[in-house]
């Protein structure tokens, strides 16, 4: 996997580099910013990007709710055994099981969506540099078109004190 990237020490430099890359004509999905911690104050972190995750969690909750309602009602009617003068389909106790399965549905939906959209566990090896673990921030482009490599390097260099690397 080919990549062109630079390592910066300061988030300000990273912001400049990202802006330069955008000016050089690269689109958002092509620019990769990697850090050892989430850096929330800067625009490059896309902190304000809308997320569908809340709706997906809600959807998972609804699936859990429907499953719980079906499970309790179906099993109580499938082999009805009267207990303690209570109705065969007892809604008060069923609500408890339905609640738990709703929450479980929301939790599992969230985690599964996270894994899918964050692409973990990763299949093929991805762009990474061990210096990131020491606090440096990586900005780069994976699999760049050969024609734009020079422009990318120029953009990255003008971001600030950079450690330019090519893979």
């Amino acid at each position, binding site marked *: 996997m080919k990549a062109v990237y630079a390592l910066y020490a300061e988030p300000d430099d990273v912001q400049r580099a990202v802006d330069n890359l955008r000016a050089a004509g690269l689109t958002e999905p092509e620019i990769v910013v990697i850090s050892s911690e989430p850096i929330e104050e800067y625009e490059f972190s896309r902190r304000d990007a809308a997320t569908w995750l809340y709706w997906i969690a809600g959807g998972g909750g609804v699936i859990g709710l429907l499953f719980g309602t079906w499970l309790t009602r179906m099993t109580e009617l499938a082999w009805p*055994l*009267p*207990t*303690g*003068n*209570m109705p065969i389909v*007892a809604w008060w*106790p069923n609500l408890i099981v339905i609640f738990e399965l709703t929450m479980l549905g929301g939790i599992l939906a969230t985690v599964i969506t996270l894994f899918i959209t964050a692409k973990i566990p990763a299949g093929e090896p991805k762009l990474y540099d061990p210096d990131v673990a020491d606090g440096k921030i990586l900005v780069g482009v994976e699999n760049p078109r050969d024609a734009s490599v020079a422009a990318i390097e120029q953009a990255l260099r003008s971001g600030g004190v950079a450690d330019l690397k090519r893979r």
Partner: protein
Amino acid sequence: MPHRWGMAVDLDRCTGCGACVTACHAENNIPTVGPDQAARGRAMHWIRVERYWEGEFPDAHLKFRPVMCQQCDAAPCEPVCPTYASHHTEEGLNAQVYNRCIGTRYCANACPYNVRFFDFFNPQWPKPLHLQLNPDVSVREVGVMEKCTFCVQRINAVEIDAKAAKRELEDGDVKPACVQSCSAKALVFGDLNDPESVVSRLSRSPRGAKLLDDLGTLPKVTYLSKQTQA
């Protein structure tokens, strides 16, 4: 009209002899746990004779009360069993299904009458005592709950015979072991859905009361209060 089995206990007639307890043990293969376990509170008397003293010697009065499973219509032991081992039958009995029981003992805690018992160990019947076991009743293994069933094996046997002979059941056809062995005829068993049966008439008696009926368990055993001085 399905049967609805109930009992009446006449406390005026009960002498506290304990024949019902012995008969129940014999009929239902209930193990005797031994003196050590009994001292630890693990005796398994599906029917027990409760004994209460009133007053001081020499004016002490003794009261006896045989207590067995009340086969409650709103039994608190039934909804709490996670495996439906304790459930209600169509004839109004609270059934205990040994094979479903995993021994959580929740039913015993929920029972206000404390008439449910747990098999703490595998019961032993050293030879030749094993010959006295009743083949109509299962032997329970360690870890399950058991209790009075109104001798459901006798009820089933009589019902099957009556069906085969194409006749109706009469009052007094079914006699659980305790009822059969009571020398004072204090215990009466019968169909509460038959308004003419002895147990129905006794349940309507002005002396009649239910045990702990303010708890809302709807028990089916009527206790006729003691009127005479002992």
